[in-house]
């Protein structure tokens, strides 16, 4: 039983039916339901909760999980840069992300969508973005590629749309989802202008014991059917100082990541020295995901 089914139960209870006392007696289930909001829990409560989840996941997936709850690092706001003049559209990032973040493989969920655009004298033809391209080799002459994932907005419309506080922006700028609070209403998906949120229409389906066991509560722990998920800049890695999986996977080095508050970080250097732009800047979402051109493109 998850929060949503419980709430259904509660709703029915309120509308006349009597809550079955035998159900109520199972305290371990109740513990989950009356869980405080993640950001309000103290260290002991967090430990107890993640232990309980580790136990549940082990039973469900026959695999041992570690569910971390690392806090934001003080003085750090994460930023991401993507060099469009290098990206060759090979999709290595897409699958490295799936591997790292335990997305469902079937039905398929990708947090990164790579769009292919035609390049011509008029400039970028944004109307013609194609995500299903599959030539033998990339890059193809006359095209360029633009990977899109969660832009980690400073001003995230998805957060405002959530009726249950199941998604919020952390102090290090990462927008996270608490899968135990999400009721699957998908308002956030409608609000996101970047199509960066994805819905679990089914239980996550991967080959047995093919989950990445090194997880974070707000990141890549296995999701439930009926909840929304999204890119977290690999919170389970980046809060421990590591680069996100997509940065590590990119063969051309187009992906840059670091602390926006550190003037010497790669991302700060990119913003300072290159012409950068942000997707749909006019919407005032203030993304912390910057696209730039490492050099002027030629054909």
């Amino acid at each position, binding site marked *: 039983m998850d929060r949503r089914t419980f709430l259904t139960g509660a709703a029915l209870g309120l509308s006349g039916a009597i809550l079955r006392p035998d159900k109520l007696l199972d305290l371990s289930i109740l513990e989950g339901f009356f869980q405080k909001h993640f950001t309000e829990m103290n260290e002991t409560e967090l430990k107890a909760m993640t232990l309980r989840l580790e136990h549940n996941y082990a039973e469900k997936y026959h695999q041992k999980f570690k569910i971390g709850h690392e806090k934001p690092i003080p003085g750090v706001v994460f930023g991401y840069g993507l060099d469009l003049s290098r990206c060759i559209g090979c999709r290595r990032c897409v699958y490295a992300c799936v591997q790292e973040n335990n997305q469902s493989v079937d039905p398929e969920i990708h947090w990164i969508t790579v769009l292919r655009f035609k390049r011509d004298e008029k400039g970028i033809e944004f109307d013609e973005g194609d995500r299903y391209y599959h030539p033998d080799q990339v890059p193809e002459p006359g095209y360029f590629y633009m990977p899109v994932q969660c832009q980690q907005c400073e001003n995230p419309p998805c957060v405002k749309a959530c009726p249950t506080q199941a998604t919020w922006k952390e102090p290090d700028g990462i927008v996270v989802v608490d899968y135990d609070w999400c009721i699957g209403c998908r308002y956030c998906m409608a609000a996101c202008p970047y199509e960066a949120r994805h819905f679990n229409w089914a239980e996550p389906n991967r080959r047995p014991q093919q989950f990445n066991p090194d997880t974070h509560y707000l990141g890549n722990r296995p999701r439930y059917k009926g909840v929304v998920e999204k890119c977290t800049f690999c919170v389970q890695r980046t809060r421990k100082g590591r680069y996100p999986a997509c940065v590590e996977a990119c063969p051309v*080095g187009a992906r840059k990541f670091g602390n926006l508050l550190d003037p010497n970080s790669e991302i700060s250097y990119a913003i300072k020295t290159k012409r950068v732009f942000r997707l749909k800047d006019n919407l005032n979402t203030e993304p912390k995901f910057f696209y730039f051109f490492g050099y002027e493109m030629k054909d």
Partner: protein
Amino acid sequence: MGARRGSRARLSKELLDPSQSIFFRTSPPLSSKEHSQPEMKRHKSNKAILTLLCLVGFFVISTVGCRPVSVSHEETSHSEGAVSGSPLARFQALFLKSAEPSDPDAFKKILIPPPFPPRVFPCSKCHKYMPVNLKPRKLVKNHAEIVLRHRPGGWCFDCHSPTDRDKIRLANGQLIGDEFYALCGQCHGTVYRDFKRGLHGKRTGMWNGEKRQYRCVHCHSPHDPHFKPLSPLPPPVRPQELNRE
């Protein structure tokens, strides 16, 4: 709930208005339409319940004393109006204090060892007994696989030393060992500058700690430097193919 629906409608109108959309126009958003009918039916019937749930959810949350929190915006945001201009300019001004240059040679310590092609014996083993031939030509007796597709009009001795045949040579005559980036940097100044700061090329490891950096020659053959094409991994499944439960 009426208020919430209203705000949702406003949001989606602003944000999903096709005239506002820079892209995603021809590939329509993954809308509920594209999902299978039975799935949709179930969700429609759930809708009423969900609406109720939102209310009940709030009720439950507030009665059991778990105040819903809005996570501090203050830490990362900034007072409006302090800096004016485009959102981006504002963002840059606020987030990027003046960057003092880091140790310009720091990158040397994190370079991954170069990928030497297997070399049977040193160049001088043969070239000791051969006169230097400065004439640009197609090589046949040896090195037939090396075809220069680099600087138009360039030749081997732009980079290889004619006197010490085992070594690479800079323009000023200085012989170098593994530091080919210094060679490349002579002609590709901007790229080299970015490379030193980790912008051109690739770093792995820790964003705030120990890193490793790839060298120019990991990605570019000195003789034929254009990055070699790759075969792409499979495209995503089209929505209509996702219709299975």
